[in-house]
């Protein structure tokens, strides 16, 4: 087990997570481990342990959490959230943690690419003649891209949308 260096802990980290949309309620965790027991990822990759992640956040282990790759392993199945007796919305807490990691520029490359595509086409896949010809063969109407809205709607960078006061989302 790695030792925790108390001097490197960030006591404000838990507050930052709790201020993110979905992060509120985090501090109610009493460490019963129901989330971990319900998590389908945990048996397959021990590094992804919901109870442990909450403890790390509460202790202020900011660097170890935000710079880790295991935080991106959540499948968003909501199993943890459904079983929590303290109403910690852990699936949403994970989004709060990942949003903070994105603000620190710790983003898996695939997600950045996906976002650029979405901003450019308004959808995850570019739609061309080939796709619409195939649709026509099945008697389906063509898909039309409306990219103009998305450039206005989504900022250049994933973390630069800060119109919301995060505390009230």
């Amino acid at each position, binding site marked *: 087990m790695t030792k925790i260096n108390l001097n490197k802990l960030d006591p404000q980290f838990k507050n930052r997570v709790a201020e*993110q*949309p*979905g992060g509120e309620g985090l501090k109610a965790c009493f460490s019963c481990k129901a989330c971990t027991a319900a998590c*389908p*990822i945990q048996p*397959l*990759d021990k590094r992804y342990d919901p109870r442990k992640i909450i403890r790390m956040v509460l202790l202020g282990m900011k660097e170890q959490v935000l710079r880790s*790759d295991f935080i*991106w*392993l*959540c*499948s*968003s*199945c*909501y*199993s943890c*959230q*459904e079983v929590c007796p303290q109403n910690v*919305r852990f*699936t949403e807490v994970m*989004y*709060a943690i*990942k*949003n903070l990691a*994105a603000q620190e520029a710790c*983003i*898996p490359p*695939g*997600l950045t690419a*996906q*976002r650029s595509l*979405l901003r450019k086409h*308004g*959808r*995850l*896949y570019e*739609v061309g003649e080939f*796709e619409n010809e195939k*649709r026509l063969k*099945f*008697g*389906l*109407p063509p*898909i*039309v891209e*409306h990219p103009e*809205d*998305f450039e*206005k*709607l*989504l*900022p250049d960078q*994933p*973390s630069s*949308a800060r*119109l*919301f*006061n995060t505390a*009230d*989302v």
Partner: protein
Amino acid sequence: MEALLYLGCTVPIRNLNYEVSARLTAKALGITFRDLEEFGCCGFPLKSLNVEDTLVTAARNLALAEREDLDICALCNACAGTLNEVAHQVRTRPEIREKINQRLRPIGLHVEGKVKVRNFMRLLWEEIGVEGIRKAVTRPLEGVMLAPHYGCHYLKPSELNVGFDSPETPRTLSEMISATGAEVVNYPSLLDCCGGGLLGMSEEVANAMAAHKLADVSKTGAHALVLVCPFCNVMYEGQQKKIAKATGLDLKTPVVYYPQVLGLALGMTSEQLGFKLNRIKPTSLLKMVEG
């Protein structure tokens, strides 16, 4: 009844069998789908990077639907879940609605939260009902054994599905399969997550998650695994060959969409229902039904 058909990104490009069968069966049951060309991504893929971006991207679609004064029916579980969640926030949190509207203003849209969002199964369940489906069946799928897979965002978060189904003991898909005359096959890993959400992060973990259910279902002798979500389809159909190779399991479990089997029971042909796009052919199922 009339609803706007929300296709999302994946279904209209990669799952035409789902789209075509959903449209045909809806029409046969008296549901009128209208298309809205301006619909875009639901916002789900942005949530890990920035929750606010998801809120405004989803709200754009909700605002477009409000302009038409029609409810939304989404085919993908993730789209339906995201749009439903954001519609709920817009309705119940005025301060969030106000801020979303600030960001929608530059594209000339405004959202009030008047539109109801349902997935296709919930629409069938609430508007047609199990009895309605049973009465419409002209060719009962006698002897066909089908294993249901609901998918996480069909059932959870449960607070968004009050009055529809239970995350622990779900029944809606199973009962709608029964209504076609087929036999519902139960298996231990019914509630398992497909793993699709992390395929891009760790293919190994994602495949291990899907493998469990595929192994269970293949043991039951079911003629097919019945899905309603294109993400689940990526795992159970798209990844099945790789999973079989990695695990050494002998897997050849056909994967079908619910409206495809419903369509068969309504007397439609496998060709009309896009079965030629199913990558693991449900040969024995089709033989039993079409001869």
